[in-house]
C-alpha cells in the first residue's frame, strides 16, 4: 500500500501539506453557493406567491390591534376582583399570576413579565372556590357574598367575570356602571337583548372591556390574516369549522364534589348559594347537576353555540372582518349523552365521570340522574350575502376526530388545522404558472406557517414538522418560547387599562358581534326557523314567527 499521508516531515508545513489540509475546503464554497441559490429560490417563490394576491394589504383593521405595544410606563398595582371562581375562573387566576402555594406554578410562568396585580376581592356561590381564591391571593382577597357588594368596593379597579353564562351580562353591566374594568368569559351574554345592554353600559362608562376569546392571541392568525388581507385565496365562498370532543368532561359532565348542599338546607355542608344562583332564571329546587354541570342546561348556559362555536366564529370574524351574519339556520339534538348516572365506589368515594367504573360502583344518592337539555350534536349555517360567503359550523360531543378550520377560495385553500397551510387550487388560474414550474405543488402547501415549529425544522431529523400544539388554544410562540395565551389575553386587557385605551384584542364591538352571532344559532335551533339580522335596524327577525309559547324557551 502506498503511503498516502504524503506528510513532508523535513520542512514542517510544506506547500503539499497545505494543499492536502485544505483539500475539503472548496466544499464550503459549494455549500455557500447552494445556500445562496436555495434562499434565492425560496425567497422568490414566497414573494412571487405573495405578489399574486389581488388586494393591497392593510384592509383589515384587526391587524393593527394585534401589534399593540403598551404606551404608558406607569406600572401602578391594579386591584382586581374575581366573580365566579370555578373551573375557568381558577384557570384565569392562575394565568394572571395567582395560585395557592400548594399548587404547581402554571407552565411557562417563570419567563413572563409580571402584571403587577393584586387580588383584593372574590365572589363565588360555592364556598370551596372562595377559599381557593383567598389562598391564591396570599390572604389579600376579601369575600363578598354578592357581586353587588363586591362592585361597591373602592379597592377593586377591575373585575374578571367567569360565572355561568346567565350571570355574565348582569354582572358585566353592574361592573361597568360601577366604573370597573371588565374581563368577561365567553359567551358574552346569555340572551339576545343583553348584548345590547352590555354594549351600551360599557360604552357609556368608557371602561376597558375584554371578552375572553384568548385564542385570538395565537400567532398563527398573524399569518392567516396576511393571507386573507392580500386576497391570496381568491374569492372565499365557504369556510368550514367544527368542534369535536369525546369525553364526559368534554361534554361538560364535570365532577361533583363529595361535599355539597344548598345554604338553605337545615343541615349538611351548606356550601352552595343556590337561591342566588337561580335568582335570575327559572326557579327550581336544588340540583347539583344544574349547579356543577351548568353548561348542560339552557337555564344557565348557551350550549354548543355560545360555548364552543364562538371560539371558531370569533377568530373567523377577526381574520375575515365579517361582522354579524345576515342569516342563520341550525339543526341538531341530544344524540349520545342522553342520560347519565353519577357513580361512587363501594366505599362511597366519588368517581369522576371519565374514570373507569370499578366493580361494585353505586349511584350517588346525592346526585339525581342527569338529563341535559342542550344538544350534543349541532350544526349551524351562517350566510353573509354581501360577502358571497357561507360559514358552516358543526359539532359532536361523541367523536374527537380533527377536521380543521378551512377557508375555501377560488384560487387557493387555507387550512388552520396545525398552523397555516395554503394550498393552490388545482383549477387556479393565478397560480397555474407556479404549479407548472414546480414552485407550487398541489399536494403540498404553497405557503406554510407553523405556530410553534418556526420554519418547521426542530432538530436534525425531518420527523419534526409534524407536531404542533393543536388548534393553538393553550399556547403560542413568542420570541421562540411557548407562552400561555390566556396570560397574553389578560396582559392585553391590563396593558389597555394602564393606557386608558378601550380598543382591546376582543373589545366590546367584537363581543357584541360574538354574542349576536351565537344567539342567532341558538334561536335558529330552538325555534326551528331561519333567523335574520337586520343590520340597519339592529334587530333580529324570524322567517316564521314563533308562537308565544315557543318564545318562552328564550327567556
Amino acid at each position, binding site marked *: 500500500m502506498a503511503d498516502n*499521508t504524503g506528510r513532508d516531515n523535513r520542512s514542517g508545513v510544506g506547500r503539499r501539506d497545505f494543499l492536502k489540509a485544505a483539500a475539503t475546503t472548496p*466544499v464550503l464554497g459549494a455549500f455557500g453557493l447552494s445556500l445562496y441559490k436555495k434562499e434565492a429560490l425560496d425567497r422568490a417563490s414566497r414573494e412571487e406567491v405573495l405578489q399574486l394576491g389581488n388586494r393591497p394589504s392593510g384592509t383589515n383593521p384587526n391587524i393593527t390591534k394585534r401589534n399593540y405595544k403598551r404606551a404608558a410606563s406607569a406600572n401602578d398595582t391594579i386591584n382586581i376582583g374575581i366573580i365566579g371562581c370555578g373551573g375557568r375562573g381558577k384557570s384565569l387566576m392562575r394565568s394572571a399570576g395567582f395560585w395557592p402555594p400548594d399548587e404547581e406554578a402554571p407552565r411557562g410562568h417563570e419567563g413572563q413579565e409580571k402584571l403587577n396585580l393584586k387580588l383584593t376581592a372574590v365572589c363565588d356561590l360555592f364556598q370551596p372556590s372562595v377559599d381557593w381564591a383567598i389562598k391564591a391571593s396570599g390572604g389579600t382577597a376579601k369575600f363578598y357574598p354578592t357581586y353587588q357588594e363586591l362592585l361597591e368596593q373602592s379597592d377593586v379597579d377591575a373585575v374578571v367575570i367567569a360565572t355561568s353564562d346567565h350571570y355574565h351580562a348582569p354582572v358585566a353591566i353592574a361592573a361597568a356602571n360601577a366604573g370597573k374594568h371588565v374581563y368577561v368569559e365567553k359567551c358574552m351574554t346569555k340572551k339576545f337583548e343583553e348584548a345590547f345592554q352590555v354594549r351600551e353600559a360599557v360604552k357609556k362608562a368608557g371602561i376597558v372591556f375584554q371578552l375572553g376569546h384568548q385564542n385570538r392571541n395565537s400567532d398563527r392568525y398573524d399569518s392567516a390574516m396576511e393571507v386573507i388581507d392580500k386576497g391570496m385565496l381568491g374569492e372565499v365562498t365557504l369556510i368550514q369549522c367544527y368542534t369535536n370532543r369525546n369525553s364526559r368532561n368534554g361534554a361538560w359532565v364535570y365532577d361533583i364534589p363529595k361535599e355539597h348542599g344548598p345554604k338553605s338546607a337545615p343541615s349538611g355542608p351548606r356550601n352552595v348559594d343556590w337561591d342566588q344562583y337561580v335568582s335570575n332564571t327559572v326557579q327550581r329546587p336544588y340540583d347539583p347537576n344544574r349547579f356543577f354541570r351548568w353548561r348542560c342546561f339552557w337555564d344557565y348556559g348557551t350550549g354548543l353555540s355560545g360555548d364552543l362555536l364562538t371560539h371558531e366564529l370569533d377568530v373567523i370574524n377577526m381574520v375575515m372582518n365579517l361582522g354579524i351574519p345576515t342569516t342563520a339556520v341550525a339543526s341538531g339534538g341530544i344524540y349520545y349523552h342522553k342520560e347519565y348516572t353519577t357513580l361512587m365506589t363501594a366505599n362511597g368515594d366519588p368517581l369522576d365521570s371519565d374514570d373507569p367504573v370499578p366493580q361494585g360502583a353505586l349511584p350517588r344518592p346525592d346526585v339525581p340522574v342527569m338529563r341535559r337539555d342542550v344538544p350534543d350534536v349541532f350544526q349551524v349555517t351562517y350566510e353573509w350575502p354581501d360577502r358571497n360567503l357561507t360559514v358552516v359550523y358543526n359539532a359532536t360531543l361523541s367523536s374527537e376526530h380533527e377536521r380543521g378550520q378551512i377557508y375555501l377560495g377560488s384560487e387557493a385553500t387555507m387550512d388552520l388545522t396545525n398552523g397555516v397551510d395554503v394550498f393552490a387550487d388545482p383549477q387556479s388560474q393565478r397560480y397555474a404558472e407556479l404549479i407548472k414550474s414546480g414552485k407550487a405543488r398541489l399536494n403540498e402547501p404553497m405557503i406554510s406557517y407553523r405556530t410553534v415549529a418556526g420554519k418547521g425544522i426542530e432538530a436534525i*431529523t425531518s420527523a419534526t414538522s409534524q407536531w404542533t400544539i393543536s388548534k393553538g388554544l393553550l399556547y403560542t410562540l413568542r420570541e421562540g418560547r411557548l407562552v400561555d395565551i390566556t396570560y397574553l389575553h389578560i396582559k392585553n386587557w391590563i396593558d389597555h387599562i394602564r393606557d386608558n385605551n378601550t380598543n382591546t384584542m376582543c373589545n366590546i364591538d367584537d363581543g357584541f358581534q360574538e354574542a349576536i352571532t351565537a344567539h342567532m344559532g341558538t334561536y335558529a335551533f330552538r325555534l326551528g326557523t331561519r333567523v335574520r339580522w337586520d343590520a340597519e335596524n339592529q334587530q333580529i327577525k324570524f322567517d316564521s314567527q314563533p308562537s308565544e309559547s315557543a318564545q318562552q324557551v328564550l327567556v
Partner: protein
Amino acid sequence: MATEETLNGMLKKYTGAQLFFLTCMRVIIGWHFLYEGYVKVTGEGWSSAGYLNAAPGPFAGIFSTLGHSAWMVGGINIIMSWGLTLIGLALILGLFTRTALVGAAVFLFLFYITNPPWIGVQFMAGEGSYMIVNKNLVEFSAALVLLAFPSGQIWGFDRLFVKQ
C-alpha cells in the same frame, strides 16, 4: 516521534479509495450539520421547546421538564443552533475532527432518544418507515466509524495543527 510513527503507521493502511470515501462521509455529515445549524441560527422563531415537549418514549418526562423551562430552552436553543453549525464547519474542514465527531455523536444520540422508533413507542412520524433503526441511528454509527478511522489528519486542517 513515536506518536507520529504510530499515526502514520495506521494511516498508511488506507487505500486511496478508503481515504476518499471516509473523507466524503465526513464532509457529507458536516454538510448536513452545517445546514441544520444554519437554518436554526438564522430561522426566526425556531425553538427546541416544542420538540422537547412532544418527545415520546421512556425519557419523555425529562425532555418535557426541560422543554417547559424557559431558561433551559434558551440555553438548549443556543447550544443546538451553534453546536450544529460549528460541528458542521469542523467536519467539512477536517479541523478538530475528533472533538467535532464526539459532539456529533452526542447530538445524534440525543436526537435518537428524544424520538426513538422503538416498538410500542408512539414516535413522531416522518418520511420513511422505521423499526428501532432510523436515520439518526445510522448517522450516529457513521460518526463512530469516522472516530475509529480518522481522516482529518490527512485531508483536513488537523494535518497542520494536530500532533506535529
